[in-house]
């Protein structure tokens, strides 16, 4: 287990717990009471730490190295999942995964950015930063879903679309724009979840859902706090201020009405009980899909367009001419 700075008080307790369990396993002393006590202390401490997380701490949690990633969710939520590769134009992007599977009898197409779990895999997955072919693969799978009437689920977890030379050559901007344009009129329900990092155009490139939800310890904004600090404060030191200012947490995003709700995580974060997190997400998906699948296609598209066309806060003068 990896402990973030603010999780450190828990590390000591977990270490103690391990030691006591070891003693118990040796069979000399009955440690049952001690274990129960310590587990209570851990739960209590965890609750203290996790009830008042700052936006920056949530950003850190969204990037926790033990946090479950897209394929972990897919494999725990879907049966008979088959990963589908390639954009049919250029290549297969390893930072964007997708495929077809079944959630308790309902065939779905699931798509999401994929991060790696160790150094080698992180590179293989390009740190979850997709190239244009990733967005084009995502669109191909959405069109496949549309042809057969399968709902689309997208899981968002990216520090951004990849800003490389080849990505620019192959039209990163066009690929993302095309997805937004096509998703607007897609004839099947689109259900989106931010499961980790939701950074900018790279996130919304698969995020134009009929309904969009955020897991409790995730962030979604136009820029990362670090880059925001660099641009507006002109140095990296203000990432915590930037995290506050951007209003990027699930709570803030729900308050603005831009996301439709928050999916609770287990106490201590998704990484402490990943299987339980999958169960919670699966329940949520099933409920949402049941509702969305009831809506006639025309109405679904109309509502989707209205949803996005209405986002924005501005002032309007009563009379034009003064």
């Amino acid at each position, binding site marked *: 287990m990896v402990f973030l700075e603010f999780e450190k008080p828990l590390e000591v307790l977990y270490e103690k717990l391990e030691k006591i369990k070891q003693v118990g396993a040796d069979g000399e002393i009955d440690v049952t009471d001690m274990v129960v006590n310590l587990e209570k202390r851990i739960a209590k401490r965890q609750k203290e730490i996790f009830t008042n997380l700052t936006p920056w701490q949530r950003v850190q949690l969204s990037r926790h190295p033990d946090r479950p990633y897209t394929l972990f969710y897919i494999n725990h939520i879907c049966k008979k999942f088959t990963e589908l590769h390639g954009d049919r134009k250029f290549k297969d992007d390893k930072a964007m995964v997708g495929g077809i599977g079944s959630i308790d009898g309902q065939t779905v197409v699931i798509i999401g950015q994929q991060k790696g779990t160790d150094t080698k895999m992180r590179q293989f997955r390009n740190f979850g930063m997709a190239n244009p072919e990733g967005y084009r693969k995502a669109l191909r799978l959405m069109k496949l879903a549309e042809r057969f009437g399968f709902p689309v689920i997208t899981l968002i977890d990216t520090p951004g*679309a*990849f*800003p*490389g*030379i080849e*990505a*620019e*050559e*192959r*039209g*990163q*901007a*066009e690929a*993302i*724009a*095309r997805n*937004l*344009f*096509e998703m*607007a*009129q897609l004839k099947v329900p689109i259900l989106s979840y931010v499961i980790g990092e939701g950074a*900018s*155009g790279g996130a*919304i*490139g698969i*995020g*134009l859902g009929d309904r969009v939800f955020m897991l409790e310890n995730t962030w*979604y*904004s*136009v*820029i990362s706090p670090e880059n*925001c600090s660099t*641009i*507006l*404060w002109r140095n990296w030191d*203000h990432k915590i201020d930037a995290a506050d*200012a*951007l*209003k*990027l947490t699930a709570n803030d*995003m729900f308050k*603005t*009405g*831009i996301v439709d709700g928050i999916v609770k995580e287990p106490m201590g974060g998704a990484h402490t009980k990943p299987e339980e997190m999958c169960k919670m997400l699966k329940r949520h998906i099933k409920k949402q899909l049941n509702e969305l699948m009831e809506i006639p296609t025309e109405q679904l598209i109309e509502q*989707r*367009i209205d949803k*996005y*066309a*209405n*986002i*924005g*806060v*501005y*002032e*309007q*003068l*009563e*009379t*034009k001419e*003064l």
Partner: protein
Amino acid sequence: MGWFKRLKEGIQTATKNKKEAPDGLWYHCKECKEAVTMKELRTNFFKCPKCDIHVRIGSHDYFDLLFDGKFEIHFDEILSADPLEFKDVKTYPDRLIAAKKKTSLSDAICVATGKIKKKPIVIAAMDFSFIGGSMGSVVGERISRAIDLAIETRTPFMIISKSGGARMMEASYSLMQMAKTSVKLSQLAKAGIPYFSFLTDPTTGGVTASFAMLGDLNFAEPNALIAFAGPRVVKETIKKDLPEGFQRSEFLLEHGFLDFIVDRSDLKDKLGELLVLFDESGVKQASIAP
């Protein structure tokens, strides 16, 4: 969800009083370092008479260049709010006041209707001088209403893009304008109205990754920077020097993302031709998108 506040008659910046440099003033070209008078520059379509570089100009300059005389401004009653009470080294309202004072504009985009070579058109033109031409709620809403107007009146639509990307001070609202403008353009496409995307220097970030790349035709001025990630970001990522001409109009044309490049002095004639072509075969009998 009507997320705007209705204001009583308020103080509105004089958007129509565009600042124009006097004819006698000198313009020092950033490219060739030569000096020319503002008058020379203006009569040469704001291209440097010495090196032909296209100087960055504002929405009203384009309107003057393109429309047959009169044009009408729309939606300038929609103004930026401060939904997130954003503060970095300055507050967002302070930045807005400063930008309005500096530019005499009301935000980073201006919508106008008029005629080009006797053909009606709705144009939304961005202003880089207003907080880097950044896209916030007002840019999104003005584009959205311009599209509604184009659909209602069955008039071709053009956006002149010139933007550094997102308005960070509106954070997630700014990001969502990418979705907003794209869903509106999907409605325009469904209605069979042509959309011309004209990209000028610079067009980057969320603007490129939404409406600027979604034209039925995408075309650009010569040598304009057109990018998703700006050159500085790309350079930092790959830690190598960037190839000559990278992310310029000619590079995008070569890689298949532009239909053509048009010199500013030919722009009006070109648009006039296109409007005739689309008028005859496009607008009236356009099929509904699949």
